């Protein structure tokens, strides 16, 4: 143990003596480890924020959209005609609400870009039209005022709740509640202000929208009978797949789809979306592992190269040590420790570098980063293995030197 510490000491001194050279040798490892840890921190951060923004929409959500994308792809232009009949409408919503046993509530959604104005100011924003259930399903929390009610929906009331960004655009410091705004030229009364939701993982402003009762949007704004989608919430996370299946059955019956015919709608849920995210991040991880492997390989070759140079340069030192009683193993360990110290030091610098990069990234870009322990441990153990693997050959060359030849070396 004592001798081992001694070797580490010798190694550090040897590396310190050639600061520039050691640094350049470590650079491969620094960049490799740094890139991997930084990218993983970005990846983990992105994954976390995607997941949380998926959950932000609401939890245990089931999303029902019209049309079957696979079928549309297969049928080409004909799908355009059949698309008309595959719209989701109030009957579908009622059927789900009536018959499903595994959901807590359901809400229709229509979204569309619209021009809104107040006094002489106007702006573009997205209108999300829904029912009173949309408040919970879409995580629209009220900061002041109130959300539109069931009766607002059944009366097609001209009322709206507005997001923080819309307030900034139209009202500035003026209190918006109670004011009349225009959406696509129609008057609406502002009855509530939504809490700030921030940006999602793609950098979209989640406060740049306005919400009105779905019936009002259908009759007074867009002249529609149908919805863009229906949202439903399953009673629990573990029932989400069963609830999706149940809804599928209800809709097939409601829409009169015969056995053997394809669905003309799609039912997806958050678990599936999460799975998709998992697949994407899995690919990302493989790519990063590839980069890591290549850069550690390059770094390792650099270490091997410099260690071979070092063995040659220090032939005489090896001869002296052997003359004085160092065994082959002592010399082997000395050089091996040196290459491992080189690669671990490189790894540590790499991690510091990565932490630095990811702090900068999360400060100056919309990406969230998250440094976790696992990639750091993996990076460190990999750089140790690299040092060991690429150090063993030079160290064996050193250990096998004949003491007399080594002492005679000029």
């Amino acid at each position, binding site marked *: 143990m004592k001798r081992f510490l001694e070797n580490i000491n010798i190694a550090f001194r040897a590396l310190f003596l050639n600061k520039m050279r050691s640094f350049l040798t470590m650079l491969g490892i620094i960049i490799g480890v740094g890139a991997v840890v930084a990218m993983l921190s970005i990846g983990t951060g992105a994954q976390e924020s995607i997941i949380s923004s998926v959950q932000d929409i609401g939890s245990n959500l089931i999303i029902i959209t019209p049309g079957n994308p696979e079928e549309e792809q297969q049928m080409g232009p004909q799908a355009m005609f059949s698309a008309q009949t595959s719209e989701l409408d109030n009957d579908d919503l009622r059927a789900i609400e009536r018959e499903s046993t595994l959901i807590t509530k359901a809400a229709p959604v229509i979204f569309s870009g619209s021009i809104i104005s107040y006094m002489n100011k106007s702006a573009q924003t997205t209108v999300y039209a829904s029912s009173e259930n949309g408040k919970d399903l879409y995580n629209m929390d009220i900061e002041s005022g109130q959300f539109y009610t069931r009766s607002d929906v059944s009366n097609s009331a001209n009322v709206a709740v507005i997001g923080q960004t819309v307030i900034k655009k139209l009202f500035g410091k003026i209190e918006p509640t109670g004011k009349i705004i225009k959406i696509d030229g129609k008057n609406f009364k502002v009855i509530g202000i939504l809490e700030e939701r921030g940006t999602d993982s793609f950098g979209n402003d989640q406060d740049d929208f306005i919400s009105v009762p779905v019936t009002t949007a259908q009759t007074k704004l867009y002249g529609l009978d149908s919805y863009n989608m229906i949202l439903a919430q399953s009673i629990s996370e573990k029932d989400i797949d069963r609830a999706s299946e149940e809804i599928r059955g209800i809709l097939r019956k409601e829409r009169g789809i015969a056995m053997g015919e394809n669905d003309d709608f799609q039912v997806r849920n958050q678990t599936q979306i999460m799975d998709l995210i998992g697949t994407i991040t899995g690919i990302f991880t493989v790519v990063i592992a590839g980069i890591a492997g290549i850069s550690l390989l390059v770094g390792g070759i650099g270490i091997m190269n410099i260690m071979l140079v070092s063995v040659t340069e220090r032939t005489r030192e090896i001869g*002296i040590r052997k003359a004085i009683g160092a065994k082959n193993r002592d010399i082997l360990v000395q050089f091996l420790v040196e290459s491992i110290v080189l690669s671990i030091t490189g790894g540590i610098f790499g991690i510091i570098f990565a932490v630095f990069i990811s702090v900068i990234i999360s400060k100056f870009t919309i990406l969230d980063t998250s440094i976790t322990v696992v990639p750091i441990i993996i990076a460190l153990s990999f750089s140790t293995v690299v040092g060991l693997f690429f150090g063993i050959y030079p160290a064996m060359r050193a250990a096998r030197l004949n003491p007399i030849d080594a002492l005679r070396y000029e």
Partner: protein
Amino acid sequence: MNEKKQSGTGELRSIIRTRELVKVYKIGKIEIPALKGINLDISDGEFISIMGPSGSGKSTLMNIIGCLDIPTSGEYFLDSVNIGKLNDNELAAIRNKKIGFVFQTFNLLSRSNVFGNVELPLIYTSERVKDRRKRVLEAIEDVGLTTWIRHRPNELSGGQKQRVAIARALVNNPSIILADEPTGNLDSRTGEEIMAIFQRLNRDGKTIILVTHEMEIARHTHRVIYLRDGIIPGEEIINEQISAGEVLRRMPKLEDKLLSY
């Protein structure tokens, strides 16, 4: 460091014994016979010199005696151990414990200071060494370099470097000190100072074998073994050894000042 080993019979026991030692170097197909049958008997506590012209095989013989190299044929017993039967690790252990080397070119580690260089043999010792620091300091004091302890070799004069090498050779308390032309790179006064240290160590009981090609140096020792073309043509007992201390006292005062280190 100063107990004098004697055999039970009362007569000085042979610490080094070689029989028909032969060493042939091979460079490609060319064979260079460096030693052609060397028989040596060196007793414990002796101070002998091996003298011969350049290329006569002195270093080759020293390397074999020092267990750095193995003979092509013949036998070598060190402390009654047959060296020819040992493997690399066992040879390393013998070099570490029983032998102290002093080289013409000093062979110090340039990156370590005096302390680090003298400590080196203790790093590779298999036994646990108590008072390691104390032993290093004692060895350094023994050669009078205590004030230079934190200096690196490149800050020392030739004579000082050789004294570091001697301290390093002494620190593990070996039975034999092997010195291959230790004064070869030194001026005459510094060389004389090194010889004074060797004479003192020998008086304290160390066996010393010294290689030289200068008769003046050889006359400081008890016995001169001549070596020529890989054989020993004869030897000479020196009855009146030169005392290095004496010589130093007689050296002119002026030189004393000019060469002060």
